[in-house]
């Protein structure tokens, strides 16, 4: 019994320690003057986590928009309110689905890759070698990846929304025959640029920070064995998905919960 309590306490201390390390890690790698070389490193990472994730994000966005329109239509047509379809598709995408689903896809597509890459660098002692020749691995390896994720995810989220709304248009207007003018008109009447698009962007920036932070920290902090890398990659996806969904509830409550 005593042993259990002791081990519980030890686990608690370990969690707190890891959190402290993660915070220190973020602070150390996020600052730093970007040089010309650093700018190029950043560009390469944006290419990797952003441009190469575009396909999966856009295709998912299209299908989610189409499904939303289909489901929304069958529900709304019972009330004779299928004209509100555009409003429903746009608001659910902009406020919730785009930031969350794009962040989840991003965690799976880019976050896990970041963890594995940095983890393998650590396991093959590339990070230590960098320190030996006087290059700060936080600035050289971690900072460009952190900032790239920070920029790429909001852009991906915008793409997700645009393609999703277009997917809703395809199903709702072209297929199910909702009047085109009311699809766009109701959308424009109800979507507020600051309140809906802006808050969605705030969400996606927060998710970008959390997901890339978890990914690079898990890579940097793992046990440098092949098993350690596989565990850290799994942890990245699990932790960032949970963090995104949990934070989404908190942010939604703050933005749309009427506490202002």
């Amino acid at each position, binding site marked *: 019994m005593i042993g259990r309590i002791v081990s519980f306490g030890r686990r608690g201390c370990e969690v707190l320690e890891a959190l402290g390390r993660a915070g220190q890690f973020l602070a150390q790698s996020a600052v730093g003057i970007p040089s010309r*070389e650093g700018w*190029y490193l950043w*560009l*390469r990472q*944006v*290419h990797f986590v*952003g*441009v190469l994730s*575009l396909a999966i994000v856009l295709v998912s966005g299209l299908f989610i928009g189409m499904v939303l329109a289909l489901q929304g239509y069958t529900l709304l047509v019972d009330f004779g309110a299928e004209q509100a379809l555009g409003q429903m598709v*746009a608001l659910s995408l*902009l406020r919730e689905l785009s930031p969350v689903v794009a962040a989840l896809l991003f965690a799976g597509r880019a976050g896990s890759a970041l963890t594995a890459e940095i983890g393998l660098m650590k396991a093959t002692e590339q990070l230590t070698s960098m320190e030996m020749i006087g290059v700060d691995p936080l600035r050289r390896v971690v900072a460009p990846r952190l900032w790239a994720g920070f*920029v*790429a995810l*909001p*852009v991906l989220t*915008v*793409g997700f*929304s*645009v393609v999703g*709304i277009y997917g809703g248009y395809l199903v709702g207007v072209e297929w199910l025959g909702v009047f085109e003018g009311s699809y*766009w008109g109701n*959308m*424009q*009447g109800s*979507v*507020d*640029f600051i309140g*809906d*698009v802006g808050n969605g962007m705030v969400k996606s920036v927060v998710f970008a920070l959390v997901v890339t932070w978890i990914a690079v920290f898990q890579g940097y902090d793992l046990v440098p064995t092949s098993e350690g890398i596989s565990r850290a990659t799994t942890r990245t996806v699990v932790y960032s998905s949970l963090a995104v969904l949990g934070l989404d509830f908190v942010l939604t409550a703050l933005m749309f919960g009427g506490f202002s």
Partner: protein
Amino acid sequence: MKRSKTMELGVGLFMLAGILGLLFLGMRVSGMAFTAPGDTFRLEANFANIGSLKPRARVTMAGVTVGRVIDIELDADWYDARVVLELDAELEGRLSRDTTASILTAGLLGEQYIGLTVGGDPDTLADGDTIRDTQSAMVLEELIQQFVSNMVSD
């Protein structure tokens, strides 16, 4: 380090696509129109009951949208609702002083909006004036109550 032109181009296009997407969300989805502030003028109207009228509701004339509600507050002197309307500048000086503002409902359960009807007074309303002749929102419960009490008294 090896520099790849296609990669740089890809990132550039990616960022450009993001900006264009945001622009699309602004213009097409939230219907933002970049009108200069000089293109509108304001009128006020006091209503005894605004029902569920909300800021950003439409203001129409003969069914055509000519402006929107920008602010609703309680007028503490009269205990009624003061609604501030923002109308297209082309109507400035063309609405007669006895213009009627009424709160209408789109459909039976739809959103509420304001309808303006012009009167015959030669004087016109200017920026900041108050519309005197107003008609409150139709509140369904009050109508039913009236109907029931009429039935009882008959």
